[in-house]
């Protein structure tokens, strides 16, 4: 148990509120505001898990999740970064990747076998002899991975998504970000600020040194200044604050994505956030650069900020006897502050020979803290946790050992550049700050604060203000150039732009007077061999591994990353991101004895913070279309399937052969809901021209009162759609398309006429009309009954003479329901298609059903229709056609009018080119030999090669034999040709069919046409 300081003004825990949780089956308690890791640390847990490859013990190192050291399983969820996950009542916490326990891991011996595992060793081992590999692979798989997830795991919680609109997004809720937000919001813009920690304040939040703004002069401490800024931001009506919200992606055109973790009062566990801003300010701050020395990840080695924040934010003094090895003034500041909070500090090594802040030197001296300038920690001792360290001078000539249980180690800082590079900023290494800095910024994006290399508190704030103003100016310019000049919300006059520009000049000048970028600490690695100096903790990649990779010819950091895996673990490159390129540059320079190449940063990839799949998914609603008959058909026992964008009744019983449905259509009468058919009106002076372009037939021949069946092709001459066209008036047509094409028909027609400048107008009426397909020998009788009720005598006549095949009529049912009726015959029977306004569909359906009762009217579904039309050899596009078949191959050449060349009909040229090619596929009908069963759809037609395939084949109840249609090479298309059919799982046993004339059912069309 570590004693807690419970009285500090900077604390973010509430010691009055206990939170009980379960760790490995036992109850532990932390405080409200604790992270899981701080609560565990408070309870004396120092080893959180074991490393991926060597099973080395790992402890708390940073507090922002830059490595997987504190990843644990929480409530069944693996790889939870406990160091920045808030503790909740009742949480169940477990260690990962251990055999036994994290404290005593039976796999720990692997740490000694590192000599067997140089960089890329997998590639050079375990494949000789070949039988070894499958065995080895199983072991590798078991050893890999860190956490465990069960295949039936159900993610608890509610995940939401929002797409807030904003003008400016500020990334980072520290002093620079808050200033940027205030500056932009004060100009009347809509600002969103996103901060990954649960509070605003950032770099100021835990620091008690004085804020040196001359305007205040009140000896104010930084954390107080942070609170002041936070309250301004949170109360500003123009600023929307997302706390506990990490940005995970930044993209071109100022798109920012992230997610927020829900608090107690929120109705979400996490929510995905996506914002299309007009300008972005990145003020993401810095993380610490790990110091490279032997055993630099031993539990007890922590980053300076981690030690400092543990004390100031969580009230935890991380060790009894501490040694510091730092490279910057903040390290010295932390040592002083921690000393004052009661930490025993044996020494502070600073890699810098000089340049320390004199004030801090005096304060150290006042406290008798030993400062070793030009020294660095070279090795941590202790097998499971730090028991001591060796400190050396930078050249390694003098060394000193200290016994200690805490090493606060930090080589310096490195900016969090991911938000910039993801949005295409190009980085350059700056030798003054020793930062990678953005050379070219993404459009309308500005950065501010510490990531620029600023350390002075006022400079940081002013840089934020400047970035906020610049962002505001971009937005103003955007609105000023807006397509609509009807702005009322924002004053966009040139005047306000000028005013803003001059304000920017003033602030720029002010910033110039303030301290500029600080000199950063140079890249240092302790004078050791680096066998266990880890450049990447997640992947156990050592300095030695990097050297090996370079020797083998990998000279680009990005490739070394691939070869050694460094930076590819759950820490998202946080640990090696800076050190890897620097080390590679240094090592290759030394190797080639050149003066040094420029460090090239490795790629950063989204998500910048590991993000739950459930969070990205947010609230995904299944969006399907339903016909007006949906509920009723379900009540009638319809078995529904999602077909394209629609929910459709495919069957009306669990007999998927649909025998009853089929027989009832053939013998009595059936009704099918065809509402999904595409339906359109085209009108305007050039409507006919447009139809001539897209349909293969001569559409000038469409007659009033008649329907015209035709097809649309693509430029390859493949049929993309078929349907009927009805002439409603001069240059006014109603036409139907297949269900699949309904959504793209308008787009298609407009595309193919886009250069012509024709005046025609299209209206998609698909959803506005329900369609009843009334089919079967009794269909006429049913229709007669439905319409006889009120139409006048001339309309009432639906005899074959008055309403023949291919006829079109309009009725009013009960003087109320307008119906467009077409005499068609897709299923091969006497058949009517009734188009009715969708809202009336249920009523008309019920009327038809009632009228049909005496004729045993029944529902039939899409599959029954499929079989019925197959017997009649009517094709379904996509089923009897594909990429390799054109209009002619399908036997639909009769639709094509070759005389209308001026129409530049789509597909016509291709049809002309291909029509004499003897090697094409042909659609044929076949029946099975010797009363054999039907082959599976998709079976192949073969000889020694594949010669075609079966499109649709069924054992026909109507014909009492097995029939089908197939696409075959044209030399097999002649009537009487024997087809050898190869089915899946046939084990070489072929079955045979014979090409027969089409259609199989009612070949002379008497049933359909009379």
């Amino acid at each position, binding site marked *: 148990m570590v004693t807690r300081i419970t009285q500090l003004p900077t604390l973010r825990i509430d010691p009055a509120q206990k939170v009980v949780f379960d760790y490995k089956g036992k109850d532990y308690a932390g405080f409200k505001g604790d992270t899981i890791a701080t609560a565990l640390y408070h309870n004396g847990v120092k080893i959180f898990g074991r490393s991926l490859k060597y099973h080395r013990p790992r402890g708390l190192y940073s507090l922002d999740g830059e490595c997987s050291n504190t990843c644990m399983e929480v409530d069944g969820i693996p790889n939870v970064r406990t160091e920045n996950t808030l503790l909740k009542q009742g949480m169940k916490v477990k260690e990962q990747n251990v055999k036994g326990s994290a404290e005593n891991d039976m796999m720990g011996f692997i740490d000694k076998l590192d000599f067997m595992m140089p960089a890329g060793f997998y590639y050079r081992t375990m494949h000789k002899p070949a039988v070894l590999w499958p065995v080895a692979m199983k072991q590798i798989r078991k050893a890999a991975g860190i956490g465990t997830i069960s295949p039936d795991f159900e993610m608890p919680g509610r995940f939401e998504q929002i797409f807030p609109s904003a003008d400016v997004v500020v990334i980072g809720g520290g002093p620079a970000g808050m200033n940027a937000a205030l500056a932009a919001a004060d100009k009347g813009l809509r600002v969103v600020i996103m901060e990954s920690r649960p509070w605003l304040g950032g770099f100021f939040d835990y620091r008690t040194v004085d804020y040196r703004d001359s305007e205040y002069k009140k000896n104010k401490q930084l954390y107080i200044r942070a609170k002041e800024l936070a309250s301004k931001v949170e109360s500003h009506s123009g600023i929307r604050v997302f706390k506990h919200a990490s940005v995970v992606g930044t993209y071109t055109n100022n798109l920012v994505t992230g997610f927020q973790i829900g608090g107690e009062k929120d109705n979400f566990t996490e929510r995905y956030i996506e914002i299309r801003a007009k300008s972005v300010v990145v003020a993401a701050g810095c993380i610490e650069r790990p110091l490279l020395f032997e055993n630099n990840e031993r539990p007890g080695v922590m980053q300076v900020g981690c030690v400092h924040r543990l004390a100031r934010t969580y009230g935890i003094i991380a060790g009894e006897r501490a040694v510091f090895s730092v490279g910057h003034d903040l390290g010295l500041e932390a040592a002083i502050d921690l000393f004052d909070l009661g930490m025993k500090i044996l020494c502070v090594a600073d890699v810098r020979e000089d340049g320390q802040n004199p004030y801090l030197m005096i304060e150290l001296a006042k406290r008798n803290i030993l400062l070793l300038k030009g020294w660095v920690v070279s090795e941590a001792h202790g097998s499971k946790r730090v028991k001591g360290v060796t400190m050396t001078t930078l050249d390694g000539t003098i060394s000193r050992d200290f016994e200690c249980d805490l090493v606060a180690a930090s080589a310096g800082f490195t900016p969090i550049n991911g938000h910039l590079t993801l949005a295409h900023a190009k980085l350059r290494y700056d030798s003054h700050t020793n930062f990678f800095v953005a050379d070219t910024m993404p459009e309308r994006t500005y950065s501010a604060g510490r990531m620029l290399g600023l350390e002075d508190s006022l400079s940081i704030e002013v840089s934020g203000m400047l970035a906020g103003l610049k962002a505001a100016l971009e937005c103003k310019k955007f609105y000023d150039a807006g397509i609509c000049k009807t702005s009322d*919300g924002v004053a966009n006059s040139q005047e306000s732009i000028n005013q803003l520009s001059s304000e920017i000049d003033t602030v720029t000048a002010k910033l110039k007077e303030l301290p500029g970028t600080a000199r950063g600490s140079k890249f240092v690695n302790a004078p050791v061999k680096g066998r266990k100096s880890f450049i990447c903790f997640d992947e156990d990649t050592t300095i030695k591994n990097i050297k090996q990779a370079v020797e083998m010819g990998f000279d680009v950091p990005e490739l070394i990353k691939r070869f050694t895996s460094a930076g590819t673990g759950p820490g998202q490159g946080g640990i090696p991101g800076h050190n890897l390129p620097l080390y590679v540059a240094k090592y290759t320079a030394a190797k080639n004895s050149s003066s040094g190449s420029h460090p090239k940063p490795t790629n950063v990839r989204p998500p910048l913070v590991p993000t739950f799949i459930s969070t990205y998914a947010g609230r995904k609603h299944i969006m399907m*279309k339903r016909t007006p008959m949906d509920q009723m058909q379900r009540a009638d026992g319809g078995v529904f399937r999602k077909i394209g964008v629609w929910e459709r009744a495919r069957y009306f019983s669990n007999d998927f052969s649909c025998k009853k449905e089929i027989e009832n259509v053939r013998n009595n009468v059936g009704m099918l809901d065809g509402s999904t058919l595409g339906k359109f009106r085209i009108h305007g002076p050039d409507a006919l021209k447009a139809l001539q372009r897209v349909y293969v037939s001569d559409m000038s021949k469409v007659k009033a009162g008649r329907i015209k069946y035709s097809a649309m092709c693509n430029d390859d001459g493949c049929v993309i759609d078929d349907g009927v066209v009805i002439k409603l008036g001069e240059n006014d047509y109603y036409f139907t398309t297949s269900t699949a094409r309904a959504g793209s028909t308008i787009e298609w027609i407009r595309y193919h006429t886009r250069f012509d400048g024709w005046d025609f107008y299209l*209206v998609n009426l*698909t959803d506005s009309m329900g369609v009843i397909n009334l089919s079967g020998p009794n269909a006429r009788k049913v229709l007669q009954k439905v319409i006889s009720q009120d139409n006048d005598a001339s309309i009432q006549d639906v005899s074959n003479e008055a309403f023949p095949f291919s006829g079109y009529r309009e009725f009013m049912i009960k003087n109320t329901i307008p119906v467009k009726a077409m005499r068609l015959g897709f299923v091969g029977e006497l058949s009517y298609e009734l188009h009715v*306004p*969708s*809202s009336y569909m*249920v009523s008309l359906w019920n009327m038809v059903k009632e009228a049909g009762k005496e004729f045993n009217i029944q529902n039939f579904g899409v599959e029954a229709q499929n079989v019925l039309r197959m017997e009649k050899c009517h094709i379904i596009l996509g089923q009897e056609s594909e990429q390799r078949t054109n209009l002619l191959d399908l036997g639909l050449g009769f639709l094509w009018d070759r005389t209308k060349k001026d129409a530049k009909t789509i597909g016509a040229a291709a049809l002309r080119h291909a029509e004499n090619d003897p090697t094409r596929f042909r659609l044929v009908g076949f029946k099975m030999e010797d009363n054999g069963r039907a082959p599976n759809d998709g079976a192949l037609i073969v000889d020694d090669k594949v010669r075609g395939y079966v499109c649709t084949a069924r054992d026909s109840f109507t014909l009492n034999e097995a029939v089908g249609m197939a696409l075959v090479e044209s030399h097999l298309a002649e009537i009487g040709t024997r087809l050898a059919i190869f089915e899946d799982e046939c084990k070489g046993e072929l079955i045979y069919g014979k090409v027969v004339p089409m259609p199989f059912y009612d070949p002379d069309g008497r049933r359909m046409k009379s």
Partner: protein
Amino acid sequence: MVEIKRYSPVSFKASPKRTEIRDNFTVVLEYEGEGQQPFDPSNSKDNYIVDLSHITRFDVQSSNLDDITPFGIKIPQGLCESYLQDSVLINRMNRVQASIFCLPVKKDESSKECQFDFQCSCDSDCKCDPKKSSAYTETTEVGMCMAIFGKNTFSITEKLTSLDFLDPVKKTPFLYQGPMSHIPCQIITLSRDGAKSGIIFTASRGYGKDMTHAIMDAGAEFGLKPAGEDRFKSWAGSL
């Protein structure tokens, strides 16, 4: 005997309190538990959704839209601008196309209900009466139509679409043609004024059920409630 009835593609999990049969639609005027009556749109903390799928709508297309005057009203010139006059809402969709919504309005007000009262004096080549001119197509049945209004209107929409309803460049009422819950919609923002904020939108009729579900789910945290047409009238009347 089958009773002739028209059905909306939208239905709410709420019990109608008062209904009215109109043109064979059963129009809900008020649902149980809708909240305070009479409704004061400018001072309400609640958020409502109203099914307006029964209202008459038209599509009008012409290469010369300036000539076309639906119900005698000029079509707005600016692309994606809307114009609301009495009960007629006209939305300029593109260079050659506009949509027209005939909104229900308060009976007791002097404003006319366009679709019933409109008298056209043209004898031939009519450009103002949708029933006479071939430039118009009735689209009532093409889409569902709903209104969402209340102070959290845009907190609800931001969960469903990235369209920027609060874009300061836009002036209400204005039209968005864009996706909501992944479905292409026409969305007209009628007001962005605090508690009076609200939109009307249409989308393909077939999506009625799933769209309703998506909106109710998004609106749950803001207490989004189904309301009857009367509440819509009070709101629309206050604009």
